[in-house]
């Protein structure tokens, strides 16, 4: 059975890779339809088998699989292996990744229809699916890092997919470098794990971790830090890069330069949640460090609140959704920091569906508008694009946590969990996530109203061509709308309060906020009823109401606020100055440092002073003995050998 399952796991991972190779390397020999058929078939195989795996592990309660596929290398007694760990957490991630990917593949047929890079695009997104699967299925830190950087590579390739656009190739370089800052911390974290556990295998490390709980190390000589805190924070720096937490969030809004299907797949549903997944996977380590959890909690709260605020002033439809992604990633991080890992992962899952839906719906609007993305030039689109309208409404309601929709269950669970949490920083986090609910509702429906309702602000030409998109686009929207409604109600019981994640996620009893919440959990319907009595719902409704009032009823007020709020508006406009700081201080500073080291260090000091100084001395000397120079190289060579043997002779006799 185990062998049989291992073959299935291998097939899940490799099927998209085969598609990517066929469409990528042999693209010139095959037609467009062959390219998309092969890649979609590969992902479909993975998606179907993932469901089977999910059934096997979660529903039938099959044994989690943990085994090596091959030995990457053995060095110094440490075996570096490529292998799979498939438990309920992995099985859930596999289903999310493959199904969202499948929807995006199908959608791409419509979205990229006229693009000359059609086959290349399919190759990339299949390669991405493979990389992401390797990441979530890994049973060790090294392969995790492999997948981690591989998804970063594909993200780089896809953000810069339209490589002629200056903004796109700026954004992809920025994304890669910012992620590398995170990976820098991540790699050091892995090195720390190897040093103290002498293994990179999850099972080995997690089982030995409790014995290391009280160990301290000196990173700065003379200062003792808890080993677990150091490891967890280093790993979390990696998560901050990949999951775009402040201050390493700066790449995600710019990543919207990539085609919309990948914004949905990579920059909303899957890759950016890798950090969340990683921390949940590492829960046996994080539970050993309150300090690290506090860091996670505070960083997450800042991201959830302050990135949401930026969503309010965006006018690009994709950027609104991007900032909402940043904010939602903050929510997930908050859940992790509160030790409600299951809630974080649960929100990851519901978010994957409704955010992919929102992005693809936004993409549908963009197709309808002939690649216009400015919401100020839209309005009243509802009647032209009814399917897009209704699916986007479902996505938005799920996002703001409207009772009964998927996002409601996951978001409410996070808010309640933070409320109960005793981890330092939880007070601030609770405030941040509550205010965040209002803001989320406000910017979501500001966009929604401006796009679909009110007066039609597009020009005549655009209006004449406005129509609903073809079935390859609307089909995935409908397919994603279904889980955006139902997955919350179905999974809240088992995932948060049942034994879904037993053995996969570890929470120490004194921090088990979900366990405490579970004492009062009486099924999903009662959870909805309970939600009606919490402030979150009313904040969300207030947000929708405010958006309606300010942008439909009295559009003059926002303009007035903008004009009056000078400094605040400028700060928001500059996105709190992170980009300016990075451009003007980090990037320019590095270049200046490079020039300094080069011109002063290499050219002036080493070459100018030492080398050429010596050469001048030699030159003077050689002027004296110039007459033995003939200019023939072989004379020199001959002289060298003569000299060599003369030297030997000198020493020997």
């Amino acid at each position, binding site marked *: 059975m185990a062998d049989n399952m291992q073959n299935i796991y291998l097939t899940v991972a490799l099927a998209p890779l085969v598609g990517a190779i066929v469409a990528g390397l042999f693209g010139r020999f095959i037609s467009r339809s062959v390219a998309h058929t092969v890649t979609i078939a590969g992902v479909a195989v993975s998606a179907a088998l993932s469901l089977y795996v999910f059934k096997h592990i979660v529903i039938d309660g099959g044994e989690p699989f943990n085994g090596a596929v091959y030995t990457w290398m053995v060095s110094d007694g440490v075996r570096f292996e490529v292998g799979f760990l498939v438990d309920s957490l992995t099985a859930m991630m596999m289903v999310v990744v493959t199904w969202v990917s499948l929807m995006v593949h199908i959608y791409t047929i419509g979205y990229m229809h006229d693009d000359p890079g059609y086959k290349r695009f399919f190759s990339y997104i299949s390669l991405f699916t493979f990389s992401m699967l390797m990441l979530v299925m890994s049973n060790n830190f090294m392969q995790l890092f492999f997948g981690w950087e591989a998804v970063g590579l594909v993200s780089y390739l896809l953000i810069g997919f339209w490589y002629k656009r200056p903004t796109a190739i700026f954004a992809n370089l920025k994304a890669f470098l910012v992620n590398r800052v995170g990976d820098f911390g991540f790699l050091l974290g892995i090195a720390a794990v190897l*040093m103290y556990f002498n293994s990179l295998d999850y099972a080995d490390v997690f089982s030995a971790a409790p014995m290391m709980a009280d160990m301290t190390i000196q990173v700065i000589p003379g200062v003792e830090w808890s080993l677990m805190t150091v490891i967890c924070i280093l790993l979390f720096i990696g998560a901050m890069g990949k999951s775009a937490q402040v201050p390493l969030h700066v790449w995600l809004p710019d990543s919207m330069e990539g085609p919309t299907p990948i914004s949905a797949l990579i920059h909303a549903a899957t890759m950016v949640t890798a950090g969340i997944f990683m921390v949940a996977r590492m829960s046996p380590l994080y539970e050993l460090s309150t300090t690290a959890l506090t860091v996670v909690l505070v960083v997450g709260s800042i991201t959830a609140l302050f990135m949401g605020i930026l969503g309010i002033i965006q006018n690009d439809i994709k950027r609104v959704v991007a900032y909402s992604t940043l904010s939602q990633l903050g929510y997930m991080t908050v859940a992790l920091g509160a030790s409600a890992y299951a809630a974080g992962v649960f929100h990851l899952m519901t978010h994957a569906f409704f955010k992919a839906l929102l992005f693809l719906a936004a993409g549908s609007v963009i197709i309808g508008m002939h690649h216009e993305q400015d919401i100020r030039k839209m309005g009243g689109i509802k009647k032209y694009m009814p399917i897009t309208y209704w699916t986007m409404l479902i996505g938005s309601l799920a996002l703001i946590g409207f009772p009964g929709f998927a996002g409601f269950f996951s978001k409410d669970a996070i808010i309640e969990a933070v409320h109960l949490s005793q981890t330092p920083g939880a007070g601030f986090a609770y405030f941040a996530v509550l205010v965040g609910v209002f803001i989320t509702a406000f910017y979501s429906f500001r966009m929604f109203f401006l796009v679909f309702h009110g007066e039609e602000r597009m020009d005549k030409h655009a209006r004449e061509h406005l129509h609903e998109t073809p079935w390859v686009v609307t089909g995935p929207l409908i397919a994603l709308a279904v889980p955006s409604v139902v997955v919350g109600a179905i999974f809240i019981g088992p995932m948060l309060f049942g034994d879904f994640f037993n053995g996969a996620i570890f929470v120490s009893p004194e921090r088990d906020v979900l366990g405490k919440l579970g004492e009062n959990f009486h099924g999903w319907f009662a959870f909805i009823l309970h939600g009606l009595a919490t402030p979150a719902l009313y904040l969300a409704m207030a947000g929708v109401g405010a958006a309606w009032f300010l942008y439909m009823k009295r559009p003059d007020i926002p303009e007035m606020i903008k004009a009056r709020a000078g400094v605040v508006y400028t700060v928001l406009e500059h996105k709190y100055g992170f980009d300016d700081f990075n451009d003007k201080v980090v990037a320019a500073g*590095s*270049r200046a440092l490079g020039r300094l080291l080069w011109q002063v260090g290499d050219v002036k000091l080493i070459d100018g002073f030492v080398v050429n100084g010596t*050469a001048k001395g030699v030159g003077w000397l050689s002027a004296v003995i110039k007459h033995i120079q003939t200019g023939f190289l072989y004379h020199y060579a001959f002289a060298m050998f003569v000299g060599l043997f003369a030297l*030997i002779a000198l020493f020997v006799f």
Partner: protein
Amino acid sequence: MSSELPLLSLVVWTPIIGGLLVLAIGSGKHVLEARVVALLVALLTFAISIPLYVQFDSNSFQMQFVELYPWIERFNINYHLGVDGISMPLVILTTFTTVLVILAGWEVIQYKPAQYMAAFLIMEGLMNGVFAALDGMLFYVFWEALLIPMFVVIGIWGGPRRVYATIKFFLYTFLGSVFMLVSLIYMYFQADSFAILDFHALKLGLTAQILIFLAFLLAFAVKVPMWPVHTWLPDAHVEAPTGGSVILAAIMLKLGAYGFLRFSLPITPDASHELDWLMITLSLIAVVYIGFVALVQKDMKKLIAYSSISHMGFVTLGFFIAFTIFENTGSWNGAAMGIEGAIVQMISHGFISAAMFLCIGVLYDRIHSREISAYGGVTNTMPTFAAFAVLFAMANAGLPGTSGFVGEFMVILSAFKANFWFAFLAALTLIIGAAYTLWMVKRVFFGEVANENVAALKDINAREFIILTVLAVAVLFFGIYPAPLLDVMSVSVQHLLEHIAQSKL
């Protein structure tokens, strides 16, 4: 061992004699014949080197394929060849790279092509000689003789400032090796032998060790090159023809690194221990300082030259952290990973730097400029080439799945055991290396077609495609499955480590 043939002599002398043959054929109209013969010789040598891997006994640390004949009996100098798990992969890297270099110069070199090919074949034989020599004097002869063909290649087929570059190259390296010769002779008087393995066993006092260490350091540091004796390399690369740059980066830099393993560490373990702080400092300066310098280069070849220096910093770091690991953790556990990582980095850098210089060569052959600003949007006209270039750039930036990751990863893991801050500084390459490599890629390959030269570019031809494909396969293979490389070297490295762990005092 089991082979009847003197394989090492064959990999040394086949290309040298073949090179002379090419010279003889090529002086006249028979240019094509000369090229074909050169390629055949290179292929034959590569084929001969394969059994070195296949028949190698990786469970033994002993020198294998040993050949020992008296050469100058008066001074106990022997023609003594042999390889262990450290040198054998380097020999194969040499024979492999030479085939590519011959192919790369195929129709590009129009001026005295036979002589060009011959120079590279002779160089190949001499480099194999350096890696295989087990006699100090034989090593020295190969080491010095090697300068001549490289001098010739840069001096004849080089760029406009080739005279400055060759003289700088020559002065630097010659100055370095003179002191090595003195050390060799000193040790000969102590051991009454030039056998390197006898040097390993030689008892030496600390002062003698330190002097010998410094003498070797001068020779090897220049070749690697280590900061601050690195400034010859960017100039040499810029002026060298593509093939010269490839050999320089892929193999010649490894000679210096190899010297540390074969001479400095085992002969002077106590001095290595005493001075490891110096080596670590210089290595980290190479990684970080040179990385920043690479960032602001305007010339692609200079950029990759600086990138090479930065990457070689990992090699020397991996070699010399062993002692600090022992002091910090009380065990040698982890030291082997540093040395093995360094060796993997040497091999991998051989592939990647060769590929990067060949890619620059592809562009230079078409537009005759190495300036980054002369390009822009090359992907539009050369999509296949761009795919290769991005792959190699990613390998240069140490992306997992490429060979560029393996060595750096191992050295960083190992360095962490020595000192958090060593690992911290070394790991900065993740950011800096990606910055200088991908910024160059952005400016050269992406964007709109920058000018009419770029608009007129033709994508790579079949010959270029084959060369780059072979390298791409190598880079990916060792990234996905480095075990074969580790397996051959681990026993030898373990043995080396056991040797240097024993004080000679």
